[in-house]
């Protein structure tokens, strides 16, 4: 396609426009604020659909047509540079979809509505920024900016222990991004010495392609490979966000304390930023180091899968259970990344999308239940049942719950299956043992979900559940796009696979050169 | 002989009186009175200079705007005073120390 489009700019700044609009509305007009936010996110979603339509799936790498480039701080060669390729496009669409649904789900928020929705849209803009940036500095800025609304959204609108969770989330992610910052600055200074680049730059595309393979670094009297050292740094930075095993403990806290919509965004979008970081930055810039550490990533992924699933089984708080299931499912993504094959990588990106939809459904459903019950205990600490017989009491809710549950345990015909099968297919040849063990993680994954379902939904309706009402029209309305997505992409994944397979293939062939 | 100096002297006295009022009084409305005095002293200066030096009407226009601004200031200022009184039940200037905290 010839010409040039400002669509990315528009998508990125649309939510900020919404923030401005909301700030101008008096805070007593709560419904105006809600409708403004909804309208804004829907427009943004429509714009991303336009982006999807105009996207040319045959182009590997960034789509020139959509690139946006303006010098920003030209003294340091920092640019406002946006772009989209097959890896970021599904994430952008997912982001805009989930945010618009979350606005509907936050309709009942009554505490400081204006601030909530303004921060929420602000968060959306910064997430878009992360998924679109082509400049490492810009990426970093958005990565950090995203923390601010998140911190307040958890810290103000969260549960009882919200300050602890918010601070933990903030500090943990911040720690990771500091490591990333070090890597970024090091790359900036090293890039000038590289004959292919020539100047100090933050440009991700210019740096990618394994240009720093031969460099070494003198540290504590030892010669260390530059790329390996900084790959590990960035790995930790991104791994905290995913979260990969030893860095995962912020997630249950943050999820349990965050309000429903924030949990959805956290699990549905923010976790993907970590894996997206691998795909966009860590792997292309340090392909040799990534191949070198592939075993390590695969084992960590396996631990994530099994450990997350086992921990989930022991939880008595529904939300915490689903939070751990997120840990488990993101482990599959890590496995797919470690495979570094076409099937594995495609599976990983597809899993990022599918986990986004299915886990969003789970969290939304838990939120709906929480609005009725004001607690989330499957089994209370004193041993009594928190819920019972919901199947009889809430038939519609139960059907939706079953769909979400089976989608997230990877039932064929629903979205999780194809991505998990692709991941396993990609990784089997290289890591047979890990595959077999990870499949048992899948087994436990089914076990904890079914066990939870059995304890909450089967049997006689317990006394306190008798007052619960079934899903209302608004709730069904915002669940339905996700149901459709889960079913349609489970049967026919081509719409997503088509846009990403060329870009992913590009990355895989880059990695294959160093294998 | 009425010269520029005599006008300046009057305006000077007015100005000094205004300053004194603004500092001496503890009543917000009284302070506003002082502000009015100061504004008028300026206006006299403008008109006097126009009359004796430039001989055009720019000073008149300037004074006119001063009057306008004084009117606006009085309206808003007094509104604030009334609001302040509604909140604090007082128009004591030392009561308006919210910014200190």
């Amino acid at each position: 396609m010839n010409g040039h489009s400002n669509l990315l700019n528009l998508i990125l700044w649309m939510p900020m426009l919404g923030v401005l609009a909301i700030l101008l509305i008096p805070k007593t007009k709560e419904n105006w604020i809600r409708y403004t936010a909804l309208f804004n996110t829907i427009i943004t979603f429509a714009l991303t659909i336009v982006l999807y339509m105009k996207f040319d799936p045959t182009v590997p790498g960034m789509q020139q047509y959509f690139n946006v480039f303006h010098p920003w701080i030209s003294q340091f060669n920092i640019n406002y540079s946006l772009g989209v390729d097959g890896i970021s496009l599904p994430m952008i669409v997912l982001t805009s979809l989930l945010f618009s649904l979350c606005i509907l789900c936050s309709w009942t928020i009554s505490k400081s509505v204006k601030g909530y929705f303004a921060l929420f849209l602000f968060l959306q803009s910064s997430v878009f920024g992360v998924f679109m940036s082509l400049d490492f500095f810009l990426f970093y800025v958005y990565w950090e900016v995203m923390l601010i609304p998140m911190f307040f959204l958890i810290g103000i609108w969260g549960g009882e222990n919200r300050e602890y969770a918010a601070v933990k989330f903030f500090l943990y992610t911040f720690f990771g991004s500091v490591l990333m910052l070090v890597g970024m600055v090091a790359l900036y200074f090293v890039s000038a010495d590289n004959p292919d680049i020539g100047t100090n730059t933050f440009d991700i595309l210019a740096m990618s392609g394994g240009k720093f393979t031969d460099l070494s670094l003198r540290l504590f009297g030892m010669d260390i490979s530059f790329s390996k050292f900084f790959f590990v740094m960035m790995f930790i930075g991104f791994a905290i966000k995913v979260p990969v095993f030893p860095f995962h403990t912020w997630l249950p806290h943050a999820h349990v304390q965050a309000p429903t919509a924030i949990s959805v965004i956290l699990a549905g979008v923010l976790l993907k930023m970590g894996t997206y970081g691998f795909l966009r930055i860590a792997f292309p810039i340090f392909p040799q180091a990534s191949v070198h550490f592939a075993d390590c990533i695969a084992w960590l992924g396996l631990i994530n899968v099994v450990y997350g699933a086992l921990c989930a089984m022991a939880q008595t708080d529904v939300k915490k259970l689903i939070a751990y299931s997120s840990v488990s499912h993101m482990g599959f993504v890590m496995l797919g990344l470690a495979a570094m094959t076409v099937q594995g990588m495609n599976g990983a990106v597809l899993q990022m999308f599918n986990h986004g939809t299915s886990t969003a459904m789970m969290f939304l459903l838990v939120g709906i239940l929480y609005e009725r019950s004001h607690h989330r205990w499957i089994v209370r600490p004193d041993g009594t049942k928190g819920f019972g017989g919901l199947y009889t009491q809430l038939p519609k809710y139960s059907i939706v719950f079953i769909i979400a549950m089976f989608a997230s345990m990877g039932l064929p015909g629903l979205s999780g299956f194809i991505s998990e099968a692709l991941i396993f297919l990609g990784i089997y040849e290289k890591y047979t043992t890990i595959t077999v063990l990870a499949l048992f993680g899948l087994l436990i994954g089914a076990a904890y979900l079914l066990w939870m379902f059995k304890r909450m939904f089967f049997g006689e309706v317990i006394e306190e559940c008798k007052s619960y009402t079934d899903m209302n029209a608004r709730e069904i309305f915002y669940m339905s796009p996700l149901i459709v997505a889960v079913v349609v992409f489970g049967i026919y994944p081509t719409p997503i696979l088509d846009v990403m397979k060329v870009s992913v293939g590009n990355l895989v062939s880059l990695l294959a050169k160093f294998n | 002989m009425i010269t520029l100096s005599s006008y300046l002297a009057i305006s000077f006295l007015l100005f000094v009186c205004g300053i004194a009022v603004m500092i001496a009084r503890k009543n917000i409305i009284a302070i506003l009175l002082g502000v009015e005095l100061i504004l008028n002293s300026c206006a006299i200066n403008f008109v006097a200079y126009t009359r004796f030096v430039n001989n055009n009407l720019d000073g008149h226009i300037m004074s006119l705007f001063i009057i306008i601004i004084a009117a606006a200031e009085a309206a808003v200022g007094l509104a604030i005073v009334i609001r302040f009184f509604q909140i604090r039940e007082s128009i004591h200037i030392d009561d308006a120390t919210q910014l200190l905290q």
Partner: protein
Amino acid sequence: MEYTLGSILPILLGPFLAFVVNIFIVKKWTKLGVFLSCFGMFVSLFYSFRIFKDFVFGKYSTGYYVHKVFPWFDLKAAGVSNFAVDMGIYLDNMSAVMLFMVAGCAFLIHIFSTYYMAGDARYGRFFVYLSLFTTGMLGLVLSDNLLSVFIFWELMGFCSYSLIGFYYEKEGAGNASMKAFMTTRIGDVFFLVGILAIWTTVGSVRFVDIYAAIADGSFNGLYAVGLPLATFAALSVFMGTIGKSAQFPLQVWLPDAMWGPTPCSALIHAATMVAAGVYLSLRMYPLMELGGITTFIAYIGAITAFGAATIALVQTDIKAVLAYSTISQLGYMVLGIGVGAYNAAFMHLITHAVFKACLFLAAGSVIHSLHDHHTHGHVQEMPRMGGLRKKMPLTFIAMLCCTFAIAGFPLFSGFVSKDRILGDALVMATQSKAYWIPAFLGFTAALLTAFYMFRMMFLTFFGEPRDKDLYDHTHVEKLSWNRNLPLLILTVFTLGGWYSGHFFGGWVKIPGVEHKEWFATLIEKPRVENFKAYKSLPFGSVDTGADRVFEESQFNPDKYFTEKEAHHVHLVHAIGAWASIAIALAGWFIAFMMYSRGAWNPGRWVNAFSGWYRALQNKYYFDDLYVKGILQKGLLPFNNLLSRFDMGVFDRYAVDGWEAVNRFFYRIAKWVDDVIVDSVGVDGTGASVRFFNVILRTFQNGKIQFYFIIFLVVMVGYIWKLV
């Protein structure tokens, strides 16, 4: 005639469209929805009968198949990958027979359900699940590759979960459904491993490609996890069968599956769920052979057949007896696969499906009639029944025929198929000592089968009613088409002649009728040699099969044997046949003496073998081992420990511990600050800061007039300087 898609797809689309439409309409227009379900099944039956007819009545021969593939999705990227995933239809003699059986049974079960479930609060929803369930099985039979088998396989797992948990008000239904899903899923996981192993080796999971790979020797010399790849793959796939077909040691879920409504039990036990496992093993038989696990399979089958039959001896719930008999019969099929009785195992799959469907429907008919006025529930306990043959004669006849069939009485279908399995087991035993145990267990299980089935018959239909009140309230069976017609049709098909070709064992020939052993002619092991030069279809292409011409094969069971061997085989078969007749009669006799005549007191046996009796009642303690042992004592405490470790130790110390480290550094810094900086520079820095502090504080006193004076002073200063 070449099959077009239009003549194959309706088989699948009939029930599937009924399912899709019913999701939306069945709640409002229940009757229409139910009719739609049945109609969809009828369409499916009609089209599958056409195919069945073409294959059976000689239009196509043994080796003929139709294979059509369609692209599903792909990961093609220029120069990087050419990976694609296809779905396809594979139709051969085996699928033709399976399709007809599945569609037929499912259709009759649909019809029966309109009787059994009428008046239930979720009448419509039941049919939604039923349609999806049948779709799953039909899709599995039509699949051309393992991945699509796996997809439909899991779909059935989901449906069985929903159907077993259909009465969700009951806590037990929840447990049972979860148990069923999880147990089969253990097998599924292994199955998936097998699929992955085959996929990465062969590059495709289509049956024909796998056969071709086996013929080419692609599996030779490859290893996975220390085993030869073929063995590894075969074991993994067979684990899928173990889970789905409820073989030892994963048999625990099937008896609990009776928590679902009885028609759904009929569907699970007969036509769909459990048949899928055996069907898969039959399809993958060349792989099992190549992997050399047939002995293992035979043992698993024999142990299952025997073990389940013993448990069935002591069950008092009519459905439980049938459930264990299903496990036992499935064990026979697996035993048949293990001993190379491919044909017989498949025939037993079909005959069993028919008579087991009939048995469950008949049991449903009994249960539905017995209504307890005190608990307002249906009665399933045999000790409360008795003498029911007078009240429901048609059900009685149906059940009796089925019992004859399952017990292996001559002229009935069970005899034809089971006898062949046992005969082949005996043949194997004469050739290799390792097969003596399976053969022995098989024959013993036959005795037990005859015994417990007749025990059930005697307890239910004969003798005096033991619960008079219940008996008196039971209505005399009223003829209704949707209750009796399915039973009648299924009963007719329990006759052996439909399968063996001659109704009276070959001795009596009906003039003018050609007695053709169509089953034995049609079904034979997939001959991988045929696929030796087979070139895999390119992905996304459609194979019309027009260029393949296969001759109709002549049935000659001896063609793989020399004359001497054939003589030996015939002899052994004959011995086996007479032995099984004798054994069936013996089983009937014991049951008759114990429960009809009352001559032998079963209580004495119970007392004599009380330890065994308890073990049997507790199902050999498998449930205890799995649930109480492995889950409650092993996995859950481990999970709790892990979770507590995660939050209580790892998070608290390793993560939040950094706070303590920080505090430590903070203390050091504070000490430096207090001792060095403060004490040394206290007069200088501290005091000066305090001094400025005082001054600045006076300046910021919040008094406007004070600020104004400051402003004036400064302004005066400036002006003085300027002027």
